[in-house]
């Protein structure tokens, strides 16, 4: 039985100054100095300044009388923040209990803790520096509002577990390693489209474009891979200049249709006959490195990216007389999903079940196999499906997240009841997507940014129907 006791301390000093001039110019400056016990002996303290400036143009004389523009504000801000979201004692070397019995007597054993990894006395704060420029525009007395923000955030000294060569006896180490940049534009628009005695229609739309880029991995590291997502596959590559969430793997080129085709491949021409024969009806992987004699790790390339081009939301609220209707749409466009279900249920012929599509698309002798989507169906245990495009799918979707229809009865329509509203709400009503898994809105590794967009077959968002009755007395 192993239990743990932890202790950590955080000390902060904070100073802030606000200045406003004529309700036209606003300035906020702050500075904080934080100390965390979790970092190395000489790196416990760090300082984080910030500043924000706003210019309320609508209070300037040239706009003060404008009827059309009720609000026009320009905003600029800069700020640094720190992250200390790691466990305690990460900078210290640890011994863990590793016992062993000798001739029926258990002997206590201790050795360097493999999971904690080698000590890192230089561990320090992860810092994020953010710049933001924004514009708020209010029109027609506030009936129409537009907000535009452009931002650039840069995070340095990322706190992350880096894979260490197992030949050191350790497999990972918590390090400050690398820099990442996020920049993008966010746009939000809300408007009261119609407002009269009979009809009210409000609409709200927001869209954001974010671009993520690894600036460096720290040190002279050129590339690294995030943790495995199965016992064999670690497809997430991190390379400077590309986003976190780039997928690295093999490309396919159909199937070997006959023995002659297998023999003509430099990979197989001098292999034993039994191997040549069994390769017929198997996946042909593209050989992308200089070595034609085998398909190896160096034949992999970039085959996907889990980051979307943009995400958006669209809400409409409509009130007609006593009826009201609300519709909320949500969408993501241009992202890839690693569908691990197709890894586990895709290798036909072992003791595991496969999905029906795999069998239907299997390569078969004597058939026109130009449209085949899976290797031949035979009992086998030797086939290894390399991590290729076949496990990656377009995760774009448009979802009817919520639809609510309500009816409010006339006040005092029923004796003793002051108000009565009847409503039917459906959550996750319908999803438009080409994704074959349960739910494109999936993130099996939670908030681990290195492993976004993986579907390990988790429980999907459920559709729920709520009928509600609300009474006021």
């Amino acid at each position, binding site marked *: 039985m192993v239990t743990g*006791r932890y202790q950590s*301390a955080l*000390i902060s*000093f904070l*100073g802030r*100054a*606000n*200045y*406003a001039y004529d309700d036209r110019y606003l300035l906020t400056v702050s*500075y904080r*100095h934080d*100390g965390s*016990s979790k970092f190395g002996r000489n790196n416990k*303290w760090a300082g984080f300044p910030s500043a924000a400036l706003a210019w309320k143009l609508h*209070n300037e004389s040239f706009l*003060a009388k404008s009827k059309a523009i009720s609000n026009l504000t320009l905003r600029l801000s800069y700020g640094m923040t720190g992250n200390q979201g790691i466990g305690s*004692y990460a900078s*210290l070397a*640890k*011994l*863990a209990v*590793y016992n*062993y*019995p*000798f*001739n029926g007597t258990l*002997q*206590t*054993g*201790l*050795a*360097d*803790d*493999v999971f904690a990894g*080698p000590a890192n006395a230089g561990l320090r704060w992860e810092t994020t520096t953010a710049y933001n420029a924004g514009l708020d525009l209010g029109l027609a007395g506030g009936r129409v509002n537009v907000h535009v923000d452009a931002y650039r955030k840069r995070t340095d000294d990322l706190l992350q577990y880096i*894979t260490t*060569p*197992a*030949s*050191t*006896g350790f*497999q990972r180490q918590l390090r400050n390693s690398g820099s990442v940049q996020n920049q993008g534009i966010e746009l939000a628009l809300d408007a009261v489209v119609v407002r009269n005695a009979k009809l009210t229609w409000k609409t709200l739309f927001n869209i954001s474009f974010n671009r993520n880029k690894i600036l460096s991995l720290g040190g002279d590291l050129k*590339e*690294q*891979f995030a943790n*495995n997502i199965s*016992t*064999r596959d670690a497809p997430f590559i991190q390379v400077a200049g590309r986003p976190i969430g780039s997928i690295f793997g093999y490309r396919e080129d159909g199937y070997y249709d006959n023995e002659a085709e297998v023999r003509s491949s430099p990979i197989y021409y001098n*292999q*034993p006959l*039994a*191997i040549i024969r069994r390769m017929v009806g198997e996946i042909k992987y593209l050989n992308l490195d200089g070595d034609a004699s*085998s398909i*190896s*790790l160096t034949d992999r390339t970039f085959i996907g990216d889990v980051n979307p081009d943009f995400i958006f939301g669209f809400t409409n609220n409509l009130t007609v007389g006593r009826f009201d209707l609300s519709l909320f749409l949500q969408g993501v466009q241009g992202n890839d999903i690693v569908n691990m279900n197709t890894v586990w249920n895709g290798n036909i012929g072992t003791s595991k079940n496969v999905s029906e599509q795999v069998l239907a698309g299997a390569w078969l002798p004597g058939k026109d196999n130009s449209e085949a989507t899976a290797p031949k169906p035979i009992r*086998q*245990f*030797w*086939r*290894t499906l390399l991590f290729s495009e076949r496990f990656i799918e377009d995760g774009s979707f448009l979802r009817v997240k919520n639809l609510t229809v309500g009816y409010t009865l006339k006040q005092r329509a029923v004796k003793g009841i002051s108000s009565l509203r009847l409503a039917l709400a459906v959550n996750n009503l319908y999803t438009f997507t080409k994704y074959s898994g349960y739910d494109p809105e999936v993130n099996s590794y939670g908030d681990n940014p290195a492993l976004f967009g993986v579907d390990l077959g988790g429980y999907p968002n459920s559709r729920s129907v709520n009928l509600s009755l609300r009474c006021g007395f």
Partner: protein
Amino acid sequence: MRKMIQKGWKAVAALATLALGLASCEKALEEKPLSFLSPENFYQSEGDARIAIAGVYNALYTYDLYLQPMWNLTVLDDDHVSGVDWFLGTSGAGNPQGYWGVNGPWVGCYSVIARANTVLENVERMTAGIDADVKRRILGEAHYLRGWAYFQLVQLYGGVPVRVKSLSADPNANIPRAPVKEVYAQVVADLKKAEEMLFPFGHAKAGEAGHATKGLASSLLAKAYLTMASGSLATGNVIVRGGTDNGNYTHAKTVVAGLEGLDSKAYFQLARDKAKQVIDSREYSLFPNWKDIWSKAGRNRQENMWQLQSMAGTPFVNNLSIYFSAYSTFGRGAVWFTNNHYQDYEDADRRALDGVSHNYLTNTGTPYYYPSWQAAQYRIVNGVTYNNNGTTDNRAYTIKFADVNDPTVANSDAFFPLMRYAEVPLIFAEAANEAVGGPTAEAYAQLNVIRSRAQASPAPAGMSQEQFRSYVLAERAREFVLEGVRRFDLCRWGIYLQVMNRISAGQNNISKVRAARNLLLPIPQAELNSNRSITANNPGW
């Protein structure tokens, strides 16, 4: 809109107070470990040194090594093994990458090495509070375990990074692969140190059984010499009974990659002399009765030089018994050896008579017998009629892992043989034959020590060098079937691919087709991704 002039600071925090506060906060931010030990002030007493060396042995009992991968990747990959296809379908069918434990030997052996390095660095420094003999022995054990680990690595992966310092002593994590010969040089250096520093089995300061001993280190050294010698031998043939018809096939040996140009004969002489030294020391001896090796009472005694130490009622239990034994929680075990190999034993050979479960019950009580062609002997025993359909029921289950504390549970206390004394006379016989170009009288004598103990007839007289070599190799297979010896034997003689592909489709349709890449395991992808000094995997992976 009304204009309003508002001037002045709304809030001002006095930054000056910051400077005052900092000094007193330093102490509050100091970390004091509450539930773990820090290595800095460990290594104080003899007790600490014992704890540290136990931590090295612990790496054997993990899901990287003997909690399956180490035996799965070696025992299931030879010409004599058969079993159910759901268990032998990956590493047993030439597809180790499909097996979850494929990276285990690499990770596990380097875990042994890293911990041994730490022991060597820290226990070496201890002066007070430890008996000088015990200190020496513990250092010897660390050398032994490190040598053992490099020996496994070089056989399974070829050239590997040689680390002889812990990461704290040498922070460079990017060590390139050393040539095969350099790894063997490290194996030899460590095992020589170990045999010099360790005590013989039974010595008062040798530690409990299960610790490495002098005789064990010498025996493993003899085995390493033999591996280098047979691997580097440039030409020669080995006759192996096999194929699908169980005929005798002559295979021309190949040289193991990386051992080219070694003075093969010199290493055979070293192996012969080292084996002789162990035999003459009488530190270990054979059980007169072969079956006793595998009884609970025989554990850690005499012939059982080094076994994986299990212990019922602790986490140190494994599933060897249910995978390899006739009775299993699966019904019947998942692994057996082939009918062809069974026919390689004489009828009176105890290793077939007592070593195979001829009459057994499954976990639901169904009676089975083996083999179908010996129905007269085994079909009806004591009035009970046993079944065998003549095909898929012909499963030669070994008794080697069956005598455990509780055979009806998935995880029990089977001991796995890591080195058995019976290997030493056979190392002698094989090496003596090669060292002088033919079998000597003493080579015959040592070979027959093993045969006569099993109550098998003496080896045929007048064999040529090639015949004797082939006979010893077959004898090793008879003695050590399912003990993780055969695959290494085929590989070190450079006949693994020829022997396996001669069979192609094995018993119970287990694929024995092997490509050149199957000679070595793939280096784990995580190592290739993180170690910048290793740029390429083994050929074909």
